[in-house]
Each structure stands twice: as C-alpha cells, then as structure tokens.
C-alpha cells in the first residue's frame, strides 16, 4: 500500500466520520434550521457538477469546448436519460458507450 494513498484513505475516513457521528451522538430532538437543511441538501448538487463539468470540458487541463469532444456528447446522453427517469446505471452505461464509439471513429 502506498503511504500517500494510505494517508489519503485514513484522512477520508476521519473526515467522513466527522460528518456522521456528531449529530447522531447529540441525540437532539430539535430538527435542523430550515436554511441549514437547504444548504446541506444543495452542497452535493453543487459539488458534483463542479467535479464533472471540468472533467468533461477540460480533459487533462486543456479546454475542449468543441463538438469534436466525445465526452460532451456522452454527458448530454447521461443527463438526457437520467432526466427522462431512466435507471442511473443504465444512463451511465449509455454515456460510456457513446464516448467509446465516438473514440473508435477517431474523435
């Protein structure tokens, strides 16, 4: 096991435990304030596109904002199918297939 990866995993474990344990152990009957609840619901909705969009449009750190970017079409397929209430894994598989096929044709 690589030391840096071991350190990363253990740090992830501590960080994650800190999101799970405190409020469960507090055993409070009082629900969280509505605006705090709203924020906690929005955080993953903001973090996930913040991750995904640069991965799709800046592959390897270089901008690729053209129709010749296979990942752009894969992303549109995933979003379209998921929005149409398709199964999540099915949408991902379809997006991956689109990217693989476009790459086969040299994009």
């Amino acid at each position: 096991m690589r030391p840096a990866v071991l350190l990363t995993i253990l740090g992830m474990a501590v960080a994650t435990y800190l999101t799970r344990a405190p409020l469960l152990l507090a055993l409070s009957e009082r629900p969280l304030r509505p605006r705090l609840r709203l924020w906690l619901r929005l955080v993953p909705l903001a973090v996930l596109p913040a991750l995904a969009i640069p991965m799709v449009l800046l592959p390897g750190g270089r901008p690729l904002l053209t129709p010749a970017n296979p990942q752009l079409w894969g992303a549109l397929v995933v979003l379209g199918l998921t929005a149409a209430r398709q199964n999540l894994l099915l949408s991902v598989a379809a997006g991956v297939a689109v990217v693989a096929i476009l790459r086969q044709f040299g994009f």
Partner: protein
Amino acid sequence: MFVYATVWGGLARQAGLSLGEIALMCLVVTAGASQFVAVPMIAAGAPPLAVIVTTYVVNMRHYLMAATLAPAFRGFPRGWLALVAHGVNDESFALTTARRDPAGPWFFIGSVVAVYGSFIVGALVGAVVGGLVRDPSRYGLDFAFPAVFLALVAVQLRGRGDWVVAGGAGLLALGIAWHLPGNWHIVIAGLAASGVGALVMRPESP
C-alpha cells in the same frame, strides 16, 4: 447497491488502486459518492489534503441524515451509537425514512449491515474483474466518473433553483479550473454555489 459497488471497484482498480487500498477504503470510508470522487483525484496524484477536504464536503449531507435519525436512537448506549454512526448512508437512510412508522433503530441497523456487506463484496468483485481490462479509455471507462456524477446530480434536481445552483457550480468550477492548477475548484465552486443558493432560495418547511 451491489452493482454500483462493483462499478466503483472496477474503476478504482483501473485507476491504479491496489486490492488492499480498495478494501481499506470500503471498510473505513464506506461512502459511495465520495469514493467515486476520490478515485480519479488519487489517480491524478492529487495531494492527500485536497482529496480529504473534497471528501468532507461531498459527505456533508450526512449531517442532515444523522440529525433526522437521532431522535430514534434515544436510550442507546453511546459506545454502540458511535459504532452505528459509521453506518449512516444514503440507502439505509432512504429505506428507514420511507417507512410509515417512525424510523426504527433496528430496521436502520439491519439495513446498514446489508448495505455494508454488499458494498464491500461488490467492490472486491469489481476490483478483480476490473484488473483484467486493459486500456480502459478505449472503452470510454474513464468517462464513467463524470457520468456517475452527472447522473447523481440529475436524479436529485427538484426545482429551477436546484438547476441554477448545479449549473452555476459547474460553470464556476470550469472557470476556476481553467486558470488555477490543482483540485480546489471543486470545493470552492461547490461551497460558493450552494451557499448562495441557500441564502437566496426559500427554505422548505421541515
């Protein structure tokens, strides 16, 4: 759940994580979305602190679940509760709160055991199979990471405000990543867009 874990295990193996690293992460982190997030960062050689902070932010939603579950665990020994806390996860939470009766602690614990087991076994099966595939980018498998993230967001978007927050975060992150090296665009754009959204949008009544 099992399939989701298998996909993660396969992708993690292809991204260069060893079987031991994969098993350890499943045992001690046990949070699917953040593990999907961490794998490409680790593969790209991101500094541990960047991965850890990003993991924390991705998993902040657990606060919401823990606070909702807490009243059902009154009278539990605190030592046990500290152990149960590690099992707080999206699937068990959804199953427990979907029942008409108030969230039962034993129902929750049972589902945690089931989810935990299938997650680890699934990931290891995926890791072994994933180790057999050569040249993953030929099959578009590197794209599976952003694809999972986009699908996870798309199923959670409820109203127009959600779309604006998600789209704004994506564009902000794109702008930051364009000009700044490293991985901090994820945390910065994620916190900024969700923070503005929480200040501007109308909170639902609990």
